[in-house]
């Protein structure tokens, strides 16, 4: 049975350093949760705490309402897929998958049947007598998954499982994991630093940064309504462009904001009668190129990335990083040329001095 997992103000430190600074999270049964964040944000530590491989300093982890802080990993009924897969090199595929059942003293007939079932689901039956060293990366990945699902765990934990695979395999395995989840309906906690994985797999994403939860929500909600500048910048490729700006007044449509680099003042839908420094965030797909003098912003094209379906132009806009603009795939923008950029202020995000999103103005 899939479990509900609850983290209540969970904290952890290594010596002086606080790694996890109070995380609250309620994971519903059968939910696919992705913990995402840059390396060192504490996401793997958090996962290992759920698994029971790391201790919890303060706070409580509950499975179906029951505290599990003091339970050993084996007593939590979790399955875990490690980044390195941790397949035992001296065992065959079959033995690797059967190991947990052997430890649990499941009788041979049932063991055989359950292993067969798992190998079948993962299309590994033909490889049952191979050793891990004879397998491709994707096959190893499937064995690692098979090994953790054979015990029918209530919670399924993945620690950056696809990071050792090449791009094509990663896409394929992503689909397989997704399909497997639809079939098994386990509760899944999945750690990754890759936002594409997070966007494609998750029911809900948890964005972590420096041991704190930045935002929790369904992928599109996070993409469209990021709670702060960090989340806005973390999700989406190319990254959201940021422009330094200044709130200069308040009108009927919202805030009047002057873009520092160009001096253009536009009405934004940000709330409140604020004065002072703000940051404007714009997605590449919300920008269009135009003549330099017509743009809200003008600058030199530093680089052009042609991906086939899309082309992105990176324009030096006077911000901390160049602003990415999506242009038509067939459009030729020479690098080094001077262009203008326009955007719809209604599609923009506005962040205050501390990076928090200014809530949209409700007219």
């Amino acid at each position: 049975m899939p479990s509900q997992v609850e983290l209540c103000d969970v904290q952890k430190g290594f010596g002086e350093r606080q790694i996890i600074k109070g995380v609250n999270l309620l994971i519903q049964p059968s939910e696919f949760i992705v913990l995402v964040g840059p390396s060192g944000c504490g996401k793997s530590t958090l996962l290992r705490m759920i698994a029971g491989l790391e201790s919890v300093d303060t706070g409580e982890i509950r499975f179906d309402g029951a505290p599990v802080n003091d339970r050993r990993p084996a007593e939590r009924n979790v399955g875990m897929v490690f980044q390195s897969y941790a397949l035992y090199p001296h065992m065959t595929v079959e033995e690797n998958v059967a190991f947990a059942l052997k430890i649990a003293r499941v009788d041979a007939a049932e063991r055989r049947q359950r292993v067969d079932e798992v190998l079948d689901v993962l299309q590994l039956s033909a490889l049952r007598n191979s050793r891990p060293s004879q397998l491709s990366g994707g096959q190893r990945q499937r064995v690692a998954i098979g090994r953790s699902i054979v015990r029918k765990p209530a919670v399924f934990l993945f620690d950056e499982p696809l990071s050792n695979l090449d791009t094509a395999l990663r896409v394929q395995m992503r689909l397989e994991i997704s399909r497997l989840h639809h079939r098994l309906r386990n509760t899944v906690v999945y750690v990754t630093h890759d936002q594409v994985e997070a966007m494609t797999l998750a029911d809900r994403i948890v964005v972590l940064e420096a041991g704190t939860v930045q935002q929790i929500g369904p992928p599109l909600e996070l993409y469209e309504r990021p709670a702060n500048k960090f989340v806005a910048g973390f999700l989406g490729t190319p990254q959201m462009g940021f422009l330094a700006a200044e709130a200069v007044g308040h009108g009927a449509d919202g805030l009047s904001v002057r873009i520092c680099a160009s001096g253009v003042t536009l009405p934004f839908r940000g709330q409140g009668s604020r004065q002072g420094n703000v940051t404007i965030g714009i997605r590449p797909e919300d920008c269009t190129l135009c003549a330099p003098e017509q743009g809200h912003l003008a600058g030199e094209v530093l680089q052009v990335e042609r991906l086939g379906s899309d082309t992105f132009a990176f324009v030096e806009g006077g911000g901390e990083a160049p602003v990415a603009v999506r242009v038509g795939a067939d459009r030729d923008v020479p690098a080094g040329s001077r262009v203008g950029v326009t955007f719809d202020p209604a599609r923009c995000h506005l962040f205050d001095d501390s990076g928090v999103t200014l809530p949209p103005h409700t007219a």
Partner: protein
Amino acid sequence: MRPQWANRGALAFLFGTPAMLGLIGFLVVPFLMAIGLTLTNQKLLSPQDTRIVGLSNYERLLGLTMIRQDSVLGVNGDTGFERVRDVTRRTPRLHGYKPLGQAEFGSTRLVLLARDPIFIQSLLNTILFAVMVVPLQCSLALALALLVNAGLPGQRLFRTVYFSPVVMSMVVVAVIWAFLFNRDLGLINQFLSWATFGKFQPVDWLGNPATAMPAIVIMSAWQGAGLQMLIFLAGLQAIPKELYDAARIDGATAFQRFLHVTLPGLSRTIAFVIIITTIAAFGLFTQVDVMTQGGPANATSTVMFYAIERGVRGQDIAYGSTITVVYFVLIATLALLQQRFFARRAGS
């Protein structure tokens, strides 16, 4: 910090206990016993009770002094020196001392006296052995390692051949070499005589005080060099190939590459090899026990051989322990000094 369940104090204790019992019972306890016993007069089988005798074992072992004698007129008119035995018997301070060596300067002579001249001689023999065998064995090992590493076809076979004496028992090796060193029939004399067209006078290698120790040195270096060769090989293989390529591009000759790439790259390994070879050299026992029994005239008696001779065969446990404690202090000091020396060299 790991979770509570991962703290396995009790289990670690269970897993570690058999090994720790063994190490404590057969290493720590005997070592402490050795130190304790040196302060007693313990014998293996003795009607007397064991008593604490303080540091007298050490005095007996290490007692060393010098006397100066002037020549005296003998009974029949010629000048000579008073017999040392008469002097020591007459002087309470010199009681128990025996002559170790002497030097004459005209009408005076200096006599070196020791409480236990055989021990002093054994100690000197051991040092002599180490001084000869360490350079010989280490340079032989380095030469072998360079040869094996030269990239010739069949190098694995050569490596095996050079290493093979190491795995053989020292007793077997000593027995074979005792035959090779034989005066009348030994292959070494036969070979030398053949190579010099019969001019070479056969030497009784193991029966002559002057040649017995060098003979053991040669045989020991032959037996042990393969071990250090392998350690050198590991060191050689750890030197990045790029350094050689770079030196080659810079136009260094083979000898310059050896001097400026190989030797510096091996410095840690060389230090390690010299230290372990020295320590092993100071433990010299088996070769002597099998080949010469310490003879001739104690010329091959070593510290360890003498310790077993007195402590076990003479059943004087306390005295034997004293010798081994002195031996341990000696090698510990040596190891420490060498390590310091090499650490400073590597640091500068």
